[in-house]
């Protein structure tokens, strides 16, 4: 190889790569507003992003998969955990993680900041990013729940979830609201005994929880709901 050939490789390689990169960067700018739903990106969301940075959240949590890996990814935290639970985690991390092997620091997050952070996470949740992360893929939640419901038409727990209107606050599959945590996620994290106790008196098990008590249900009914949630935990495979 001559020096001239080597110089050709240098300039050819560099310029070709820069050209591809430049064209795609322009294209990204053209499509980004649509992909990220910029029309919903209001001042409250921006204030939430500033709070997210002020408290250095990103050096424990990942978001869009970037950041530190010490705590759960926040890309779909809004649909997974729900607004009320996000506020509680921000205000009372010591209570929420009491007894856990990994703790979250108390950072003195104000009421206003918590609301802004919820708005920020709700907006992030809507970013169209080719269905990442897989563990929070809506398609997976839906299939997992469909399989479950198809096989348990007689499940008393499922009937009670329906009767008590749990989906007024919680999400299950692609149904429900985003005030409390997603039911599949609770089922994946907690035992049936824990869930049954929690339903009877939420504040006794998790201080500052905003969930109302369902003390009117008898223990067998609470046990049936708990068993249903544990069986609703996401199943393997996509």
């Amino acid at each position, binding site marked *: 190889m001559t020096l001239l050939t*080597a110089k050709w490789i240098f300039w050819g390689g560099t310029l070709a790569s820069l050209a591809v990169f430049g064209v795609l960067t322009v294209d990204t700018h053209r499509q980004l507003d649509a992909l990220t739903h910029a029309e919903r990106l209001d001042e409250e969301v921006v204030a939430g992003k500033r709070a997210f940075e002020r408290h250095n959240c990103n050096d424990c949590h990942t978001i869009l998969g970037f950041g530190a890996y010490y705590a759960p990814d926040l890309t779909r935290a809004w649909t997974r955990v729900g607004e009320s639970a996000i506020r509680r985690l921000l205000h009372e991390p010591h209570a929420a993680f009491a007894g856990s092997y990994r703790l979250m620091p108390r950072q003195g997050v104000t009421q206003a900041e918590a609301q802004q952070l919820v708005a920020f996470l709700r907006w992030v949740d809507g970013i169209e990013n080719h269905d990442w992360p897989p563990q929070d893929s809506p398609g997976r939640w839906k299939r997992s729940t469909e399989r479950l419901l198809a096989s348990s038409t007689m499940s008393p727990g499922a009937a009670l979830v329906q009767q008590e209107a749990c989906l007024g606050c919680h999400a299950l599959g692609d149904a429900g609201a985003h005030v409390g945590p997603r039911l599949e996620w609770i089922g994946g994290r907690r035992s049936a005994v824990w869930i049954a106790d929690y339903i009877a008196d939420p504040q006794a098990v998790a201080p500052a929880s905003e969930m109302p008590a369902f003390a009117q249900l008898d223990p067998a009914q609470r046990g049936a709901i708990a068993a249903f949630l544990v069986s609703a935990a996401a199943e393997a495979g996509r």
Partner: protein
Amino acid sequence: MRYTTQRVAYPYFVVALLLFVLQVTLGLWLGLQYAWTAPQGLVDAFPFATARAMHTNLLVLWLLLGFMGATFYFVPEEAGRELAWPRLAWVQLALLVGTGVAALVGFVFGWTQGRPLLEIPRPLDLLVVAGALMFLANVGWTLVQARRWTAVQGSLLGGLVFLAVLYLFGIPFYRNLSLDWFYWWWVIHLWVEGAWELITAALMAFVLIKLTGVDRAVVEKWLYVELGLFLLTGVAGTGHHYYWLGAPRAWLWVGGVFSALEPLPIALMVFDTWRVAREGRAEKVPSLTWTYLVGLSVLHFVGAGLFGFAHTLPQINYYTHGSQVTVAHGHLAFFGAYVLLNLTFFYFAIPRLKGMPGGAYEERAGHWGFWLMSLGVLGMSLSFAVAGVLQTYLERVVGQPYMVAQQPVRFWMLLAVVHGVMVLAGVVVTVRHLLRLRPAGSALEVPRAA
């Protein structure tokens, strides 16, 4: 050493080495937080996030100070002229170290920009830019006055200018999180897989020419090919960070194809080192410097090339993105490429700065340092890799919630900490050895015959 102004490199090396010890100590603390639960009061006062900001910023700071010191050593010798403003180099060091210390103390009190690796608050960013401008002016003016241009110089200067310009993209506040991360990678990726590779290639070429006396024309020819391949694969390869942040789907193709080729230029670099070593002067002395050169090219290839390739394709990255797999790759790549590069250059330059005949020095403790560090980092990265694969399977494939999936991962993080202790021991030995480097034979009772 042929020019007195090259001496200004030494204080840069000293500061860089001391910061290196602090960086690794904090890393050990971070690893421990995975295996051991600190009391809530301690978590409130000194959160994981703060320690991580310090760990990563110290890494960037000491590597950059090392590069700058290396440049101040390199430029007069390559240009054949004294450095334009040696006193400005001292001012620049004081400014950058002062800014770094202010940033680290600020992190403890919650003064942060809050973006990973770019936590330095914006007012301090301006001081960093001022320091970078002093540096570029000093180096640039020296080269302009010398009027002697070489490809090695061009590669170094190009890398340094590229590095400084890219830093600017990390300074603004971005309203849109996706756009924020898009430009965040212009700093982080285009640094480590663009600008810093140019600097590495230049410094490696310089050291190889000086150590072996091989024909400069041959080295420079291959330098062009290496740089062409680095930039071809590295620039468009930025796309492998744009898969899942809300950017168009075309990045999956571009990122996947270009970054799959990224191991090529590193392989060429390994081959190049081997070829020069074989063709150059027969005697490989000092042997520790050669151990570092070979270690650098091999671990650069394994850490950056192979570990990077392992999770760069979108089909795999969908599951491994944002897991401990990234940590495994990050640690081995930074160590193999940039930590070893800096240390190689220190072992080349310090004996010459201290006027040791033939650049030879008493090397025994240095070998211990090298092997403790290298095997430690390798073991640590393999532990992270197992932790990452386990996390990927349990959390992303099976669908277990994060905290449930983390439970079995903790053992492997503990194993990483055990290897981390080995790394810290190696770093302390190495830094001590470098700072107290003695001429060859001085440790023996009877001086070796000349």
